[in-house]
């Protein structure tokens, strides 16, 4: 793997998740070549931010600004957003 290449997934938090996590975003490290499913990524975040755990069952994941299923493969360099039920408008 090229040394400049990202070894992180950038995770964005909004609204109630942002307030509970206490941060706007987090850089989740991956081992070289590692990938993981969106569902597994949620599990890791629940370990890192236990306050988020009760809210995660209702969360949808967006990868690179598009909704994905829990089976979607997340890679280093991806921009992941955790989206609680939205209420715009």
């Amino acid at each position, binding site marked *: 793997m090229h040394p400049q290449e990202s070894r992180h997934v950038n995770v*964005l938090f*909004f*609204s*109630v998740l*942002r307030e509970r996590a206490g941060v706007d975003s987090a850089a989740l490290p991956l081992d070289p070549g590692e990938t993981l*499913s*969106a*569902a597994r990524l*949620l599990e890791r975040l629940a370990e890192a931010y236990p306050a988020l755990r009760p809210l*995660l*069952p*209702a*969360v*949808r*994941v*967006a990868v690179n*600004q*598009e*909704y*994905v*299923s*829990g*089976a*979607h493969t997340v890679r280093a360099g991806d921009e992941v*957003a955790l*989206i*609680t*039920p*939205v*209420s*715009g*408008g």
Partner: protein
Amino acid sequence: MTSDAVWVDIQETPLRLEAVAAFLRVEEAGGIDIFLGTTRRWTEADSNAPRRETIRLEYECYKPMALKEMRRIAEEAFRRWPLCRACLLHRTGAVPLREASVIVGAASPHRAEAFAACRYLIDALKSRAPIWKKERFADGSAEWVEGRFAAGDFSASDTQ
């Protein structure tokens, strides 16, 4: 559909209805439907509790994705109905009473399609655009409004 037949935007400043109408009023259109979502003062309680008084709403969004999702919604509407124009505008930050947080509109040769498309735009926006609102009440409290994903949406904790 040419790309200038769709207008989506997210802005901190008040939404301008006249600009929306100017965008939608094209000579191919005979029916234009415009929806405005405004900050409402009173929320009725479920049971015998007193109604709650809102003083303003505050909107937060994941802007690049919200803009993309709004454009995708407009494109879906164009595939589904014979439209001339469609627009989706959302305001962020604090939105006082009576002011619009969202304006969507659709222009079509005939009115049935304008209504159907306009309804689709706002329903899809409210269930898919990553935008959240916090309600500020007169009693000093505040809460994030619990939204709802549309039926058929999945949460990412389902792996199938």
